[in-house]
């Protein structure tokens, strides 16, 4: 019941409705805007250091040698006619695929071994096994070069000590390729090991127990439990490593500089030789862009597979 003493405001003095998002404070309250502001520095960095160079490289690859006029796809056609470039494509594929497979297998094996080490001591071994990845690549490659270089090779010294002839590690094409793959594998397998170790720890123990109850052998557990559970992480790490290995520069540059006789050149080093050393920057840009379709197609199929498996799992 309305009380005669209760207050009531005259209609003319009704409190105006509060405006939502008014002023700077209101703007900053919107999550979308705050999110955009916070990611702006990263987007600017990616734009300036990744997107712009990529677009500029595409533009450069369509120019003539002296960068004065457009020549369309002439640079790409020129490369496809070069025997040396065919070798570069073959060597890049060989290097990337072989090194990634070795890294994955060794990383997977080490991850399993580490998984079975008691957690107290695991930290020490993990730290030691991560060392190759932690040391700057140029520095460690220089160390490997000293091991291979004939005038100071410790490896050859050992071989001679045990009665074997010294090897021409970096002068023979196939041995030089082996050395490149060896160094890349040594450097990259800690990444695989640590990723697979983390993935192994996330596989539920109950699955292994259930498999054991069903009488599964170690090999069957690996094939029917571990591998399916780790399939996505295996795909992702191999894709990531493939991209990085394809674009590798340091190892080849320091170990062999593309020799002997261009038999260890890969895209990045050949692009440098053609673009910077030989002064044909558009052609160098064209060389480096050849990697793009290969890696884009690989990424598409791998990520599509991961996406499909994730949807099936749900």
């Amino acid at each position, binding site marked *: 019941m309305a009380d005669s003493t209760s207050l009531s405001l005259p209609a003319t003095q009704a409190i105006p409705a509060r405006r939502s998002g008014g002023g700077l404070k209101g703007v900053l309250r919107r999550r979308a805007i705050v999110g955009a502001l916070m990611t702006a520095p990263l987007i600017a960095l990616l734009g300036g250091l990744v997107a712009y160079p990529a677009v500029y490289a595409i533009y450069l690859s369509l120019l003539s*040698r*002296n960068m004065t006029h457009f020549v369309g796809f*002439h640079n790409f056609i*020129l490369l496809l*006619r*070069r*025997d*040396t470039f065919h070798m570069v494509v073959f060597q890049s594929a060989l290097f990337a695929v072989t090194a990634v497979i070795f890294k994955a297998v060794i990383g997977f094996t080490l991850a399993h071994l580490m998984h079975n080490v008691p957690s107290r001591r695991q930290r020490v071994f993990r730290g030691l096994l991560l060392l190759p990845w932690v040391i700057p690549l140029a520095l460690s490659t220089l160390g490997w070069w000293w091991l291979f*270089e*004939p*005038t*100071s090779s410790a490896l050859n010294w050992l071989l001679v000590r045990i009665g074997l002839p010294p090897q*021409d*590690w*970096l*002068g*023979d094409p196939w041995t*030089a390729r082996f050395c490149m793959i060896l160094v890349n594998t040594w450097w990259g397998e800690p990444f695989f090991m640590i990723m697979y170790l983390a993935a192994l720890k996330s596989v539920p123990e109950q699955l292994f127990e259930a498999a054991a109850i069903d009488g599964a052998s170690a090999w069957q557990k690996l094939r029917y439990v571990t591998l399916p559970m780790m399939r996505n992480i295996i795909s992702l790490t191999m894709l990531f490593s493939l991209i990085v290995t394809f674009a590798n520069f340091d190892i080849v*540059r320091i170990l*062999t*500089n*593309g*020799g*002997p*006789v*261009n038999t260890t050149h890969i895209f990045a080093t050949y692009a440098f*030789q*053609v*673009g*910077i*050393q*030989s*002064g*044909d*920057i558009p052609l160098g840009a064209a060389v480096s862009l050849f990697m793009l379709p290969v890696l884009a197609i690989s990424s598409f199929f791998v990520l599509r597979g991961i996406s499909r498996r994730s949807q099936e799992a749900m």
Partner: protein
Amino acid sequence: MSTSRKMSRRRALGLAAAASTLPLVHMRTAGAAGKLSVGFWDHWVPQGNDVMRKQVQAWAAQNKVDVSLDFITSSGNKLLVTIAAEAQARAGHDLLTFFPTWEVQNHSRELESLDDVIASLESKYGKLDDFFRALAIADGHWRAVPAAWGSQYKGPCGRLDLFKQHCGIDLQAMYPAKPVHTALSDAWTYEGLFLKAAEASKKIGKPFGIGLGTTADSVDTAGSIFASFGAQFVDAKGNITLKSDNTRRALEFFKKFVPLLPPDVYSFDDATDNRMLIADQTTMIYNPPSAWAVALRDAPKVAEQCWTFPTPAGPAGRFMPMNVFQFGVWSFSRNKSAAKDLIVYLMQREQVQQRLNVTLGFDIPPFDSMLDFDVWEKAGPPPGTLYNYPVRPIHQMKRWITGMPAPPAIAVQIYNQALPCNLVAKVTQAGQSIEQAIAWAESELESYSG
């Protein structure tokens, strides 16, 4: 009446304020002629940089220019990367002193004309050889000045004791430290004494340290050997002229010569031969005197047996591989007049001689009138070791750069993609026939022509 004037507080403050502005006056006039940024090659001989720095600072003080100097290493192609980056960005140093070999032609559109500098220097020291003109003149103008800083010959440096004892050759009799032409030097040919000496060196386990790798030393040597046989890759008009009897004869020579070299010859870099010399693992290398200079410090007994002398002759003559550095001023430089003035100063005879005395005669001045410096006679031990380092008329030798006489756009690719070394390797390592190897090289050359 008192004549002394007491120092009031106000007067003292005023004097102090005036005194404190003196440094500002000095700073203002120090860079009165502007700023200049210069990039120098980081010299192999450590003391070289110090003397260059002092010379530039003396010039800067005299001319009131605020100079900043950078000494940039040639390791890892840092010089090429610097040139390429500055050309693309149109920013960086005003003056670079290390445009190597073909880079002036590569970047001629971005380089300032230096006709006036050359005219000034030639009027004083004589005309420059056509060899330098081919490297530095583009569109009818001098785009660079050949520098007496880093320009070097890469000829033989042999061991006196090993040559005498095992190869039967007295290097000091063949090329004595005096201006005489000897009959023995006429017998110093690739297919003659050179091959015999290589065989003898291989037998004693100290083979010639000559590489067929991808780096400059290997390319320079291989290119000069091809030139001495008259084998030309591309002529001055851009026609591919590789398929010839001269090329076949040169490759036949390499088929006999390469088995006498170390087995890792295809993986040589620019320092492998230096290391072999210092480690007493070789009878002879092709190198400027930097290897001997380091041996002076690290292996004196090896150094005192080193003798630098001309290359052997082939059927087409005697060719000395040369690496030329050139002073270039960017067209985007903001102080071109100071840059040109500095070039003229650094190329004066007094400055060149002062630097050469410190760098043990490593750098070769482009003017023949400067070949009378006594640094090459006095350098040692052994005495006279560098007398025959600069190309002298008695040597009957031509300067050579691999890729010549091809148009620069093709020559730079022949050089940087190590085509001569790869051609030899196709025959000696990959087992191809001479005709197959020549066909492969021709297809490479066609792609260089675009």
